[in-house]
């Protein structure tokens, strides 16, 4: 297990280096940040001075090395627009996105997996058809439309829930959390629901497919031949088997939602990372873009890593390197 961990960590480090090069070059290719940094009517002198100060006159490879050097020291530079350290800026927005994402993905899993398992266990029941209808809906309806619909219905018509913003927060370890207040939850409900619909549809599909396949497998047949009740077959034998693919989907969805909650955050004016990145692209705020992309890559790698560990915990064949 230790060897496995070290190997994975080295892999992760290598991937991060490659990503930093790609991200740096990619962002370098768009726009001219000088226009953001100084006013259009600045003198040529100020202009050249600024270019020199930020190192824009140096060749690409040297700029990258400078960037990498500060990066290693945990410094992502300062935002051109907010004029504050990028790291602080991102960390101040991260909890909001984290909260929204976790609420959406965990909610989707907690609801979607049991529904999907039932639909796989009784594929022909009326309830199962309704569940599958729901999942088709979740796949085919665009997220922004669901969001607007929910706002119109629950916020405008019924006035039960607020239409946007984050609501009251509580500070824990220097970070603002809205999941700790009732008001915060009421703000979280609609965007989380919007974001979770597609994920839930996916979880339903995966759980149902896994369940159907498992119910036809030999080990289930053998378990039933031993006189185990269906409940014991499902919760004693099947659940652990089908949770192996579900854990993968959970990890992928968590990462994808973290990175791409942009649309939902915009609709609900949720002050998270998504809004920050949209703003920074519009204003060509290079350091923010670079740091955001690096952070997303880092989160992807960490989540993948956690998935692999969960895999090994669930599947003994992976542990001993058989499969």
């Amino acid at each position, binding site marked *: 297990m230790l060897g496995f961990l070290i190997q994975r960590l080295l892999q992760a480090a290598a991937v991060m280096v490659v990503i930093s090069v790609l991200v740096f070059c990619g962002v370098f290719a768009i726009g001219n940040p000088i226009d953001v940094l100084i006013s259009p009517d600045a003198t040529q002198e100020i202009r050249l001075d600024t270019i020199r100060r930020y190192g824009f006159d140096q060749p690409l490879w040297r700029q990258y090395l400078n960037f990498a050097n500060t990066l290693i020291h945990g410094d992502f530079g300062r935002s051109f627009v907010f004029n504050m350290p990028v790291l602080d800026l991102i960390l101040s927005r991260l909890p909001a996105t984290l909260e929204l994402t976790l609420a959406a993905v965990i909610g989707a899993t907690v609801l979607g997996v049991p529904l999907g398992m039932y639909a796989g266990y009784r594929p*022909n029941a009326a309830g199962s058809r309704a569940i599958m209808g729901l999942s088709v809906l979740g796949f085919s309806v665009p997220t922004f439309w669901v969001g607007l619909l929910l706002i119109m219905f629950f916020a405008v018509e019924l006035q039960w829930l607020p239409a946007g913003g984050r609501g009251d927060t509580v500070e824990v370890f220097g970070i603002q959390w809205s999941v700790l207040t009732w008001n915060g939850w009421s703000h979280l409900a609609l965007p989380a629901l919007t974001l979770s619909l597609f994920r839930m549809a996916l979880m339903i599909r995966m759980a149902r497919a896994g369940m159907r396949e498992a119910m036809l*497998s*030999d*080990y289930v*047949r*053998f*378990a*039933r*031949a*031993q*006189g*185990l*009740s269906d409940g*014991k077959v499902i919760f*004693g*034998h099947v659940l*652990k*088997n089908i949770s*192996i693919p579900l854990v993968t989907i959970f990890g992928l969805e968590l990462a994808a939602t973290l990175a791409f909650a942009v649309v939902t955050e915009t609709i609900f004016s949720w002050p998270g990372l998504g809004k920050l990145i949209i703003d920074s692209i519009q204003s060509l705020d290079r350091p923010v873009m670079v740091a955001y992309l690096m952070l997303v890559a880092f989160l992807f790698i960490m989540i993948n890593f956690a998935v692999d560990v969960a895999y090994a915990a*669930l*599947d*003994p*064949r992976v542990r*001993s390197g*058989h499969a």
Partner: protein
Amino acid sequence: MTAALDVRGLKTHFFTRGGVVKAVDGVDLSIQRGRVLGLVGESGSGKSVTGLSILGLIDLPGRIVEGSVRLDGQELVGLDRDAARRVRGRKIAMIFQDPMMTLNPVLRVGTQMSMALRAHEAISSDTVRQRSLAALGTVGLPAPEQCLAAYPHQLSGGMRQRVAIAIALLHSPSVIVADEPTTALDVSIQSQILQEMQRLCDQTGVALVWITHDLAVVSSLAHDIAVMYAGRIVESGPAEDVLAEPRHPYTRGLLDSVPGEAKPGEKLAQIPGSIPALIDLPPGCAFRARCGRADRACETMPEIVDLGGNRSARCVHPLEAA
């Protein structure tokens, strides 16, 4: 003496979109305690469906439409779900072909045995452990303790099948239905397991229904034999007699296609044609299209003919006794 297992007129049909598949269409079997019955036939003849029907494990779209299955005199057909469940694993057990697939890959052997035990008895962990170890010992596993802690993939194919047999034995059932349990194993391991099973039948009095398409296995293990074709038993009797002198043309054909019986270099006789689709079978003997003795009389379904000496065949023109 009541038979350990007595199957009469069993019919299991699958109601599919394409039509009714009569996978089992009138099967009679009877087996006494401590005896081994070999159920043989080509692929698709309905052997597995027969075994699953006996345990009440047929799922929709399949259904037992007719017949009776008596276990130690108790009727199993028509039991409600829970009553049927309480019989399965306790009074009658089943093991399957692929020992790789029949054990749950993500659970330890001990966990699986514990679930099998507790399906029928509320017992302490200590008792679970003792009984599991005892069962593993009975089937000749060398290190029961290690085996209990192992995951299936850490055991060899032969060991896995022994574990499956041990699980089947946990509640000392009257009958075990074994569906080709050695087909996936090496020949040497196969014969070890066959010997083990023979010993178990002698010692514990369990009755064994051994499903196979391998006549060599049947001849070394079974006391009696039932030959199945297209959902029906076409010939049955004491194994030695049937194998030495088959009376049904299909049994003859099966025997002629066994390599062991032929002289080296001689061409193996194959039964021409293949087993018919079980949807919309035409009336009459299902073997008609492949049978050298077929004539007009075979166009109505032949009755089972008692041939004496505990033997019977479903044929209008049975082969003559020598």
